[in-house]
């Protein structure tokens, strides 16, 4: 399955990619913001991990844009952000995000969320 990792911090992208590789994910596409991610998104993407605060197009607007597309209705979207106010989390949920990780993340939490979303997507 191809993963799309979106974060404006190159450091964070490397950390997420490293964590994914450790759990056996090798097909990974990276983007520095939502705008770049939209240009790289297509039906081959099977899982999205996105930051919230990014220049040009943030994670919530990116999620809305993906959900508005025919080929983006069901792809799992995992938001990974420092934002942890309840109203922010609800906003993310309403934008079409399937689950949420608060930074700094632990590899175990990342793995659990990916497993749960992948299983739910297969079942759904």
């Amino acid at each position, binding site marked *: 399955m191809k993963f799309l990792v979106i974060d404006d911090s190159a450091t964070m992208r490397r950390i997420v990619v490293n964590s994914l590789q450790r759990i056996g994910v090798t097909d990974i596409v990276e983007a520095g913001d939502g705008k770049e991610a939209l240009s790289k998104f297509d039906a081959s993407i099977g899982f999205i991990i996105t930051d919230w605060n990014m220049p*040009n197009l943030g994670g919530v607007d990116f999620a809305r844009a993906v959900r508005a597309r025919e080929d983006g209705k069901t792809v799992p979207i995992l938001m990974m952000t420092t934002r942890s106010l309840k109203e922010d989390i609800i906003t993310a949920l309403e934008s079409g995000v399937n689950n949420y990780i608060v930074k700094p993340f632990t590899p175990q939490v990342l793995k659990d969320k990916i497993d749960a979303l992948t299983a739910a997507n297969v079942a759904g």
Partner: protein
Amino acid sequence: MTPNRAAEVLYESEATLRLVDRELGELKAGEHPADAAFAAGEGRTILASLPYILQLANSEILQVIRSLRESRSALEHSTVERIQHTHSKLQEVTSATETATNGILDALDRAQGLIDELDADNGGNAGRGKDVRNSLRDEIFGIIGALQFQDITTQQINYASNVLLDMEAKLLRLMQILDPGAGKSEIATKLPEMNPAAPTFDMHATTQDQEKRQSVADEVFSSTPKA
């Protein structure tokens, strides 16, 4: 100019202008008692001294303007310039930590590669050597995870920078109010424009209480029915 002197100048200017205003008002309205006598006596004296009064008022007003210009200049050089310098220093810190973090990540990648080579040399044999190599991988992975601090502190610095830029913009507006005729100085023109590609941040970004904050997110997602 000290604040006390500025207050004195303002007070004197106000008093002089009030005196001029009162005399002009009385002359215009013809309310002065005994107009005929006034025109011939006291009124003539006041009229004669009017140019002097106006000159005095003008001189006081010029003094106030000079004082405002001094205030503007002091504000610009001591405050605005310092804010711009601090903002620039914060950007340097962000850039330096990002470079250093990427350097550490590169080194950790190389270390992982070396462990893989050791594994290959030993044919992936089980035993003490393999345990040590796996422990080293775990340690390296732990260090990589800990480097998330860089993203979070960068957001905190970006927030602090943004507060400084906001203060700077407000001070520059105040300077324009103090002395609108002075135009934009070299320092004022350095004010950054709003840029959609500018660094973004979460003003509440923190490395603290991660588990507690994660549990809030988990609660929201588990309690909301799936669409």
